[in-house]
């Protein structure tokens, strides 16, 4: 099976700082691939290059076989890539339902004249979109708040709203930037289930997350970054045991302690 997403030798430099340095990996349908690393390792920068917000200095991104390096975000959305943000990108003065309805933008094409005159066909289409949006809100547990304005909602709720809106695009691959940040244990459990469900429906997931328990539990594959470089890659058990990964997280001394404990 061809990979949905192929990242090859991707690098970006901000002045002299190589924030991401020669990173390559692949994501296949139904896989949950997690990118881990300490703060400043380049995880979000990597996401921003893949989703077209930053232009890489080197390397390429391929989506379903097509080269999409530096393609604009709206074109990536059309090709089946959706993402969420660590620090939220919602429509603040719209209701949650409207937020998710906007996510249906690409499926609503055409029919300008019936829309302008409010013909029955157009009203049916809008109702179908609203129903679809409502069921997506239900899927992330927000259906009761459907008619509340986004700016009145908590951070945790808006993170789930972003996931619902991203699903409205019917993506082939979903990039989730810290979906469990700011969530309590129960909410994290729900996010865990939600992500697993989405992946089992065939959507590939690329995840940045700091909650290691969550990452270890749901990932099929993990990529560890430190100072912009890929330091390890493999299944959760192998990556967790990798001495470089432990060193990156705990510092050199921590690594020694772990090694001594092993020996």
């Amino acid at each position, binding site marked *: 099976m061809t990979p949905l997403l192929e990242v090859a030798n991707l690098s970006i430099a901000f002045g002299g700082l190589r924030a991401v340095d020669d990173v390559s990996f692949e994501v296949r349908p139904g896989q949950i691939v997690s990118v881990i690393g300490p703060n400043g390792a380049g995880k979000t920068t990597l996401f921003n290059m893949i989703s077209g917000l930053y232009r890489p200095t080197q390397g390429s991104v391929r989506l379903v076989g097509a080269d999409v390096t530096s393609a604009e975000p709206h074109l990536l959305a059309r090709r089946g890539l959706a993402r969420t943000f660590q620090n939220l990108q919602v429509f603040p003065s719209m209701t949650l339902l409207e937020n998710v309805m*906007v996510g249906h*933008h690409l499926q609503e094409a055409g029919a300008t004249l019936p829309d302008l005159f409010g013909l029955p066909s157009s009203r049916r289409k809008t109702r179908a979109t609203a129903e679809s949006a409502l069921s997506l809100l239900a899927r992330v547990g927000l259906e009761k708040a459907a008619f509340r304005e986004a700016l009145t909602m908590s951070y945790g709720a808006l993170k789930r709203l972003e996931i619902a809106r991203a699903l409205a695009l019917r993506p082939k691959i979903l990039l989730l930037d810290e979906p469990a940040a700011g969530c309590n244990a129960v909410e994290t459990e729900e996010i865990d289930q939600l992500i697993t469900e989405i992946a089992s429906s065939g959507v590939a997931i690329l995840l940045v997350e700091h909650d290691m328990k969550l990452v270890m539990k749901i990932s099929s594959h993990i990529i560890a970054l430190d100072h912009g470089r890929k330091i390890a890659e493999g299944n959760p058990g192998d990556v967790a045991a990798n001495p470089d990964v432990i060193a990156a997280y705990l510092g050199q001394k921590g690594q020694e302690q772990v090694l001594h404990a092993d020996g």
Partner: protein
Amino acid sequence: MSDLLQFLFSGLTVGAVYALLALGFTIIFNASDVVNFAQGEFVMLGGMGTVFGIAAGLPVPLAALAAIMGTAFLGVALNKLAIEPARGAPVVSVIIITIGAAIFIQGAASVLFDKQIHRYPGFSGERALHFGGATLLPQSLWVMSGAAMIFVALWVFFTRSLTGKAMLATSNNRLAAALVGINTRYIMTLSFGLSAAIGAFAGVLVTPITMTAYNVGIGLALSGFAAAMLGGLGNPVGALVGGLLLGILEALTAGYISSQYKDAVAFILIILLLFFMPQGLFGSKHAERV
């Protein structure tokens, strides 16, 4: 009493033009956060274009249509040539670019057209109508109903069409709009074209009353900006109310105080608003989560 009615008539006529100007400001501001000070030039081009179209032998409707289309095209060109290349620059720099564009358009118009003051006859003749002791030019009715038509048409466009909704989504959060597949660059081009066409339309309607010349744009832009600020920049309803209010205030000042102070009204209003009510009548308070 008939005095007051007379002032209200002229205030509403000018106010309708300010409302259209403010609407132009609003549409571009919503798409790009840019305050486009070339907005007044669009009004000038609408009027001047029609004048010279008529002089070239075109029937009035055709001359007006050509002026509106030409101005819309210029708005798109302004975005493509001057605004879009500056993407990523601070908003203030882009605003200064629009002031530069306004000066350029004014200069080009003085060469391309001329430096004379022009008008053409009102569409339904020049015989004043009488209402309750006050007079009203039929052209004023054209201006008011034209403005009303534009506002209704845009309201339908924004609430019903997918493109209109995409424009609203873009004004709400540009990045989020791009993420759901909205081409925000196209939205910006469309906003400039639309704002330019609306400005030109206002110019076509009002030139028989106010006359026009190559240099009327800057003054119009400042009044339109004051109207947009009064209503709350970024809100189309605010643009309508702000425009009409400013027009009436100007007319009352001219009538009851002195016509010499008429032009000061807009500027005094801008200063007072910035001091006491920076978000305007209908503006949303700006709170950004970083």
